[in-house]
């Protein structure tokens, strides 16, 4: 550790922990085996603080703060598992399930889906908000991969991995609000993209069954996002 980096001590859920000053609450929590749920966050991609699942309480602040982007501070007292937070997290997940058509039983990622796993871990047994049932397309124009917008949660991991790691920036978000959608190039079928390198990184960082490899059947799409931290580590090492 370079000498210029200072160490800070803080409390997370009553435990004293120490951290480098440039670390986020999420990083420190994970180092100390304190679990904070996340969906949009992925090690190796820029943080966006969008899913709001990692919100934590900080003593002295009336606002809930996203652990993924909040830097540690000396003497900070963080609570990650209060009853209020748990209830908010469940409701946020419920909103996601109600937003599009997540029919888990027939999903390629059934059993390997981060959202599904989170729902179970947070004790969600049903969605009490009314389902919206929007009519959304499935793009099967690419010869290797598919995109099912019904299962997309707009975490933008695909957008970020493609722009930040692959450097192709095939994906972006169009529109806004509940009508926002992930698009390929000029909102065109994936198979017609001139910028896609068919690297498949987007597929493997996708937390749900929205992006998948073709030819897989229900429950067969196991994602391997582990390449990412490795890749970013190697790149950083290469750059030094």
């Amino acid at each position, binding site marked *: 550790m370079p000498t210029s980096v200072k160490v800070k001590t803080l409390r997370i859920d009553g435990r004293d922990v120490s951290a480098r000053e440039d670390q986020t609450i999420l990083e420190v929590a994970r180092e100390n085996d304190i679990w904070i749920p996340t969906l949009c966050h992925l090690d190796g991609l820029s943080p966006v603080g969008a899913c709001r699942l990692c919100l934590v309480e900080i003593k002295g602040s009336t606002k809930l703060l996203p652990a993924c982007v909040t830097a540690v501070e000396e003497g900070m007292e963080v609570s990650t598992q209060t009853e209020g937070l748990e209830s908010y997290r469940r409701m946020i997940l419920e909103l996601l*399930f109600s937003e599009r*058509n*997540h*029919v*888990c*039983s*027939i*999903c390629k990622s*059934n*059993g390997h889906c981060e959202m*599904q*796993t989170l*729902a*179970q*871990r*947070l*004790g*969600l*047994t*049903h*969605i*009490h908000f*009314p*389902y919206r*049932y*929007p*009519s959304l397309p499935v793009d099967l124009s690419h010869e290797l991969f598919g995109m099912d917008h019904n299962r997309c949660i707009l975490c933008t991991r695909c957008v970020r991995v493609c722009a930040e790691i692959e450097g192709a920036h095939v994906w972006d978000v169009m529109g806004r609000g509940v009508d926002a959608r992930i698009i390929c190039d000029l909102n065109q079928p994936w198979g017609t993209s001139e910028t896609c390198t068919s690297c498949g990184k987007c597929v493997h960082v996708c937390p749900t069954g929205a992006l998948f490899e073709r030819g897989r059947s229900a429950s067969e799409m196991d994602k391997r996002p582990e390449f990412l931290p490795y890749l970013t580590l190697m790149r950083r090492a290469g750059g030094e």
Partner: protein
Amino acid sequence: MSKPTFATIWLDGCSGCHMSFLDMDERLVEILDQVDLVYSPLVDVKEYPEVVDIALVEGAVSTDEDRAKIRKIRAHTKTLISLGDCAVTSNVPAMRNYFPVDSVMKRAYVENAAGGGVIPERGLPKLDPRVCPVHEVVHVDLFIPGCPPSADTIHAALTELLAGRNPDIAALTRFGA
């Protein structure tokens, strides 16, 4: 004291949850020792009894008939349990929700029928424009997701309930399990 009364109900679902229920095999006997099965597709009772202690509902609410039925059942049931993803999330049956009812009917009875079928005018319950989970129509006391929930899950949930405890469902199953 008499045994608690028990019912199972089949709305819009594939009956997979009932199959899973039957998959409890010999444990069924153990369960049935503790309850009085008073109403079910598995038994030949036409009228829903006045009071049922525990009822398992499989399937989503798809038709006017389902709707009327579940309302009536709710009124006569103490603990109503949504069993399986169709009841809990409306699951596969709700995949017709993106299409208007008449095109769904046409697809099923005309386009997919060999030799030009017709949409039957009688004997069919009227499809609701939108399939919905049971709890959007009536109050539900417990949710057991899964497609289908495993026999172990059903067994564990029923055992806990019969022992007067509240089962920790999320520890047993999840959506799509």
